[in-house]
């Protein structure tokens, strides 16, 4: 693994802001997203979904639907193979293949309103929809559970009665799918030594990732068993792996072609439609296209978990944190696998605790299966812990940033989730926030300022990249990760830097599963970090090949050849004219053939990115409406390859977090039906709801990356909720422990105190 340092080396591209490589396609409408593919003779598929939160399926009668003119195939749960319980590792959230298969198409019973029960392919979209109405399903309605309190009550109805643990052993029947515990020391004993202990409980509601592009795919199964899928996802290899497993296909028979992705935020790290489209194509012998409606996206794809979190922190009167303990209950939805493990890992991660412990529970409820959402599990945990830290600062009368600085995690500190920290930039990020003019800017009546911190990991995982030199001297890079946050630009810039050539001479393409080695999903803020590392390694391998080729041309010992400024040069003989990429590549046929390299690896050395956000709000005491009037987000990016993209990630993550704090929530009626399954009632921020979010990049290089990169995509959604709520507290004097802080809730709280 390359650990080449860039210290002292002049950089031409890294840190600059060249034009985005996908810009023209995206502003002209030529970029092709998941729903933009078509094949001759294509059918349209639609899904019949459960109207009940919990019911046994007694019988499905598809005969009338099959008789409808234009209907070519129908699949129900009986048509998919039974899958044994087995942990999957290709996505982002913990996934069991058996459960994934049941979520894609119900077997025996349905677990939430919106759960897929049957799928139809027909000659037109309208005929397929009409056919859904002709499918008769006989349900036996079962009692349901909709929140962690009722799901963990002694007499709770069971969402599953055949749950197995991770080793495949059947568990005692309960709705607690998993329990985890982590930490160090003895918090319980340490609390008795504390001068101040704050102990509070918090609730958050399910929220949706809110990507604007609904899930969509096109699948074609040939008579020879070969399958091609065109779709938008956060990982073509994830789609291939899941689809092949669920349908009993060989991976080599399945090719997945990645479309441009219209937002994912973690929600496209799993499959919903693809296995159904393939099954329908296998049965009909024709390509099948499926596109979700917005209502289906809300009802049937992953929201982030609703949570109940209790946090207890004890400190000395001087402000030193002695002990922290947290209890986190996350709703998994109708299948196991919430983000509670990550919530438990991150909850105390920003601080140095001698005694820290978190207890997490993954709890089944009759709601859609939760899915990853940007820093999965961390924003809710940060809401709880950063509210408690705010309380401590008030009680101890210490500046909230000083209190955080006093206890901030730094190099060498034992993290609450296990390892000791390497070099991290949390202290520098806090200092930058404290020194910024925003922190001391005056406020008006009904206004308040909040500060909050948060962190997220940079996953390493498996990555591959191919780098090839073309005859004209341009360089092609193939990445196996969908570009969701600007990785085409960052990979191109790192390759240009390595080769010493113009950025415009590097073309990055996202390869299909047959054109590049395996890659784990685009997730965990890992692509610029991990796949970037593979691009750097492959580029370095190509450069050594270029030096060998030049040595052959010159007939000199390769040891005398080095690479600088985009050219091979002879070290000790300046009379020999250097050879550039084009010159070497044009003559490649005579020196050994095409020049390319592939780098693959399991990237280790997980990084961390920390953020600190300052938020000013103004509260309207008449209506309870909260306006964010100023917002500054500071984040350690390690080294920002393309600062504009880094700022974009910070601003976008902050906006999502502000929406989560102020307005967004899934609202269910008593029967378990989602009442706000559209953008009108599920209110995401629009331009007039937000101030200009100011992003400030801090650069404390990651020692595990050749350019010092830290993945930046996810950390920005972690601090906003507590930043908003702490600001609201400063403005009103009222503690808010339940999300969202929407006008009715704020008004009620204000009325209660007045």
């Amino acid at each position: 693994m390359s650990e080449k340092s860039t210290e002292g080396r002049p950089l031409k591209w890294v840190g600059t802001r060249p034009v985005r490589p996908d810009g023209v396609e995206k502003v002209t409408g030529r970029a092709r997203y998941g729903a933009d593919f078509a094949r001759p003779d294509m059918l349209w598929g639609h899904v019949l979904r459960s109207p009940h939160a919990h019911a046994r399926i007694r019988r499905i009668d598809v005969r009338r639907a099959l008789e409808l003119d234009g209907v070519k195939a129908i699949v129900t749960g009986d048509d998919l193979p039974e899958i044994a319980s087995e942990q999957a590792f290709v996505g982002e959230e913990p996934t069991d293949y058996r459960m994934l298969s049941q979520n894609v198409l119900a077997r025996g019973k349905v677990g939430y309103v919106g759960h897929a029960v049957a799928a139809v392919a027909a000659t037109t979209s309208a005929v397929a929809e009409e056919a859904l109405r002709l499918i008769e399903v006989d349900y036996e309605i079962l009692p349901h559970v909709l929140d962690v309190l009722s799901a963990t009550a002694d007499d709770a109805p069971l969402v599953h009665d055949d749950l197995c643990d991770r080793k495949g052993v059947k568990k005692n029947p309960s709705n607690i799918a998993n329990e985890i515990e982590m930490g160090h020391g003895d918090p319980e004993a340490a609390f008795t030594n504390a001068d101040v202990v704050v102990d509070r409980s918090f609730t958050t509601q399910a929220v949706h990732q809110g990507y604007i592009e609904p899930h969509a795919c096109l699948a074609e199964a040939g008579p020879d068993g070969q399958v091609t899928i065109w779709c938008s996802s956060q990982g073509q290899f994830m789609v291939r792996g899941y689809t092949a497993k669920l349908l009993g296909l060989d991976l080599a028979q399945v090719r997945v072609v990645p479309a441009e992705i219209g937002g994912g935020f973690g929600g496209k790290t799993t499959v919903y439609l693809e296995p159904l489209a393939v099954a329908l194509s296998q049965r009909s012998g024709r390509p099948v296209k499926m596109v979700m409606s917005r209502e289906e996206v809300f009802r049937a794809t992953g929201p982030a978990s609703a949570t109940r979190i209790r946090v207890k922190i004890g400190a000395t009167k001087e402000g030193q944190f002695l002990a922290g303990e947290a209890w986190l209950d996350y709703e998994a939805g109708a299948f196991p696998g919430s983000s509670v493990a990550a919530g438990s890992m991150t909850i105390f991660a920003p601080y140095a605790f001698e005694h820290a412990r978190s207890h997490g529970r993954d709890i089944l409820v009759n709601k859609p299966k939760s899915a990853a959402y940007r820093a999965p599990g961390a924003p809710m945990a940060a809401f709880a812990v950063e509210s408690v830290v705010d309380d401590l600062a008030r009680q101890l009368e210490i500046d909230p940033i000083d209190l955080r600085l006093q206890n901030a995690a730094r190099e060498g500190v034992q993290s609450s989730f296990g390892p000791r920290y390497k070099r991290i930039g949390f202290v520098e990020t806090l200092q930058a926030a404290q020194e910024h003019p925003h922190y001391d800017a005056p406020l008006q009546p009904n206004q308040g300022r909040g500060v909050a911190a948060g962190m997220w990991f940079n996953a390493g995982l498996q990555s591959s990249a191919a780098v090839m030199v073309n005859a004209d001297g341009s360089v092609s890079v193939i990445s196996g990760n969908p570009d969701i946050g600007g990785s085409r630009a960052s990979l191109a810039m790192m390759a240009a830097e390595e080769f010493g050539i113009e950025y415009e001479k590097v073309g990055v393409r996202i390869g299909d599963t047959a054109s590049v080695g395996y890659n784990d999903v685009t997730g965990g803020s890992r692509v610029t970090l991990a796949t970037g590392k593979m691009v750097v390694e492959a580029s370095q391998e190509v450069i050594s090949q270029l030096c060998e080729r030049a040595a052959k041309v010159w007939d000199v010992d390769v040891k005398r050849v080095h690479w600088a400024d985009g050219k091979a040069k002879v070290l000790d003989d300046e009379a020999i004219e250097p050879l550039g990429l084009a010159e070497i590549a044009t003559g490649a046929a005579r020196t050994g053939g095409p020049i390319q390299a592939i780098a693959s690896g399991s990237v280790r050395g997980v990084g961390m990115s920390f953020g600190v956000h300052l938020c000013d709000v103004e509260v309207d005491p008449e209506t309870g409406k909260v306006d964010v009037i100023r917002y500054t987000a500071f984040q350690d990016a390690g080294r920002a390859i393309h600062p504009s993209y880094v700022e974009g990630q910070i601003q976008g993550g902050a906006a999502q977090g502000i929406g989560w704090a102020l307005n967004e929530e899934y609202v269910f009626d008593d029967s378990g039906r989602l009442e706000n399954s559209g953008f009108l009632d599920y209110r995401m921020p629009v331009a007039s709801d937000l101030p200009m979010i100011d992003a400030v990049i801090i650069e404390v290089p990651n020692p595990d990356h050749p350019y010092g990169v830290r993945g930046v995509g996810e950390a920005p959604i972690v601090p906003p909720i507590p930043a908003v709520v702490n600001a609201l507290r400063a403005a009103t004097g009222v503690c808010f422990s339940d999300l969202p802080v929407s006008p009715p809730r704020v008004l009620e709280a204000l009325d209660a105190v007045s």
Partner: protein
Amino acid sequence: MAGRQIRVNINGTDHQAIVEPRLSLADFLRHELGLTGTHIGCEHGVCGICNVLIDGRSMRSCLLLAVQVDGRSVETVEGLAEGEKLHPIQEAFMDEQGLQCGFCTPGFIMSLKELLDRNPNPSEDEIKDVLGGSICRCTGYAGILRAVQSAVAKMGGGRPSLLD
């Protein structure tokens, strides 16, 4: 279902087609004409990313039927560039990072085109009013606001003070 004949000018070219009365304008553009630059995000008129211009006015193509544009002219994102030359609004979105995933971009561009065609020097409130009609989930709108400022400057208007 019996088809109805429509005549419509799309991006400067006259089209005649027989369409089902229930066919939406968005589906007509995407499926019948292959103009997939108009994206569909919600199909209930909220997200604004399917915006197209009908006789110069921006409208949700998911809420219109193809038969409703009979005799009218429709402009989509595909009609903006002149050959290789991008429209100033397109250029501004690209240069100022007015997009990330790009899925909402055509809708934003079309509604801003309507605004700037009518008023090359809009006030900050007018701009925010128009932007507030569409949803972007990626950018937090900062890049989009910068893009509008740049487009206004490029098109000869004043400079709105959105960034001050």
